């Protein structure tokens, strides 16, 4: 589904990604771990098309299409979804109108008419339940005054509504208490299917207890320095990152 080859990127002429290679197949969950500043969130930003990141080398192909050529909204319509590490508050834009607009645009891109009001409401109710998202929040301004946990849950609610092919969760677990973590993870697990894939960026092994990955990659200094299965995450939890850093230097 997703093929990243030799991806280099920089921000303000500072090299952040230095040759990432990654293959993600439909139905898979990949976890990306790594110490602070290793480039995890930058990778998410580059994939979603954040403007201040400049790709200097390499390619990213999603189902045969060159992702790097597309505007952020086109990537989203093609099925890329980024759950933000810091979801933005936008006072004055209602959550539900925002979702209605987003869903209509995504559907239009796929040649589908917008959902009827009733169908939309039904879908919204169903997906709210899936991530236990408070119905009261749905009609409020987008993320305005939401707690950290509510914002993250809103990200997963949006994910559930938009049904992307590739979901990138950028430190969705940060700032979540245990209960919220369990709810968010349960939501993601229910959304997993043979047709979609998840890229989960996290600092901690804890999230991976709930969302069990097929592969774990360690990012360090803009490169994937180690890949393995879920056992690698346990090993990292135990030993930290230093042994990997040393290996890289050697």
């Amino acid at each position, binding site marked *: 589904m997703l093929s990243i080859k030799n991806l280099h990127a920089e921000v303000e002429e500072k090299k952040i990604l230095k040759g990432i290679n990654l293959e993600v197949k439909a139905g898979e969950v990949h976890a990306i771990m790594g110490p602070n500043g290793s480039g995890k969130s930058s990778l998410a930003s580059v994939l*979603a*098309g*954040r*403007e201040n990141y400049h790709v200097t080398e390499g390619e990213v192909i999603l189902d045969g299409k060159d992702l790097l050529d597309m*505007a*952020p*909204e086109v*990537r*989203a*319509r093609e099925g890329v*979804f*980024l759950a*933000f590490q810091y*979801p*933005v508050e*936008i*006072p*004055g*834009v209602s959550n539900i109108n*925002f*979702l209605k*607009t*987003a*869903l209509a*645009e*995504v559907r239009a*891109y796929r040649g589908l008419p917008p959902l009827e009001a009733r169908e939309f409401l039904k879908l919204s109710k169903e997906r709210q339940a899936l991530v236990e998202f408070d119905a009261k929040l749905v009609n409020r*301004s987008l993320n305005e005054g939401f707690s950290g946990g509510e914002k993250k849950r809103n990200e997963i609610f*949006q994910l559930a509504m*938009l049904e992307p092919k590739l979901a990138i969760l950028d430190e969705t677990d940060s700032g979540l208490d245990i209960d919220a973590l369990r709810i968010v993870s349960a939501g993601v697990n229910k959304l997993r299917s043979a047709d979609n894939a998840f890229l989960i960026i996290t600092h901690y092994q804890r999230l991976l207890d709930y969302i069990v990955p097929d592969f774990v990659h360690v990012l360090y200094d803009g490169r994937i320095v180690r890949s393995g299965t879920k056992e690698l995450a346990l090993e990292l939890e135990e030993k930290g990152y230093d042994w990997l850093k040393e290996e890289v230097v050697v």
Partner: protein
Amino acid sequence: MSAGIGLYEQLIRQYRGGSAARDKAFAAFKAHGFPTVKDEDWRFTNPAPYLKDDYRTSVGCGSRASLEDCICRCRVEGWDAYQVVLVNGCVDLSLSELPEENGITVRSLASSDEPTLEAGTYPFADLNTALHTDGLYIEVRAASRQAKPLHVIHLYSADAPAFFMPRHHVVLHRQAELHFMESSACTTGSEPVLVNSVLEGSLEEGAQLTHYVLQSGRRGERMVSHTQITQSRNSRYDNVTLCLPEADLLRNQLNVVLDGSGSECHLYGLYLPGDNQVVDNHTVVDHRQPHCESNELYKGVLQGNAKAVFNGKIFVRQIAQKTNAFQQNNNLLLGDKSLVHSKPQLEIFADDVKCSHGSTIGQFNPESLFYLRARGIGEEKAKELLVQAFGADITDRVSSEAVQRHLAKYLVKERPVIHTQDVPHVEHI
């Protein structure tokens, strides 16, 4: 010969006298003439380009069908209101649905309705005081309120360059309430139209006036308006002004005098000028008595090479202790050549008051824009949502949901496209 001389001569010749107030205003205008950029109040908006046309003060108006069509466009869906229609500044009873309640009088302005606005400070208002012939008079009896709000629709229609000077008077007696909205629009045509209107309002003790102003124009339309509100004890005045794009010039002078303790006013404005348009809002809030409150929030979204001016003055007189006065002006500059002059002014002579003012000028928050786009919303649509959100602070102040929906709709539909690539560059005058 400077601009406006021809018009000035023509107007001076028209004066027929009539009352002491008119004489005084006429003398003031005659001595000063039209304002120029040398007048502090007009420093950022040069009136000269709007005074050059060969205006006539008496013109034929458009067909009835075009008027009716325009009224339909002004109506607010789902808002049950009485309706007063003025065509070129004169009440047209055949197009109006006046209230038949006891507590309210709605009629044409009569010659006995003496102007009270003091002459000498505002040349356009002086000119209006001297020369106005018609307009609207609304009076609400003590302690009465109407079952329905009142929608005042000003239509301007001309087959030649035209200059109109309507004069309106609103009187609310003790504990009276009035809720009214003014919509102004030009019917079809493209001739230059200059409207120089004055509205005087007086609120007696405990009166409450809710006043919405929706200004939608067309190219060639220039509107200079003066609103003068005087408030007595414990009265309340709410104003929401929405300046939509299209008109060449919208210049509003909104003055509120808090002349009785315990009175309050709330002034909200949203202006959305597009290419080659100028919107200029001058407000004055004069705290003349203690224990009064004023709130003011004006927001602007500027596109292309639009120009806007916000000048908000607050005076707190020495006697006006325990005053609360707040003022804020926020601007979104979307065009590379958009320009805003924001000038908040506070003059405080009392020492036990709470006052603040502030002004911001900015662009879209790139993070908000990216967030919306990352959900599949196209850039233009995302910007539209953000503009709506920015304006919602103002449109949400309108208590009627039907009117709120009406304004929100206008906000999107009437607004020119945000991107400016294919717009030719035009220098500001």
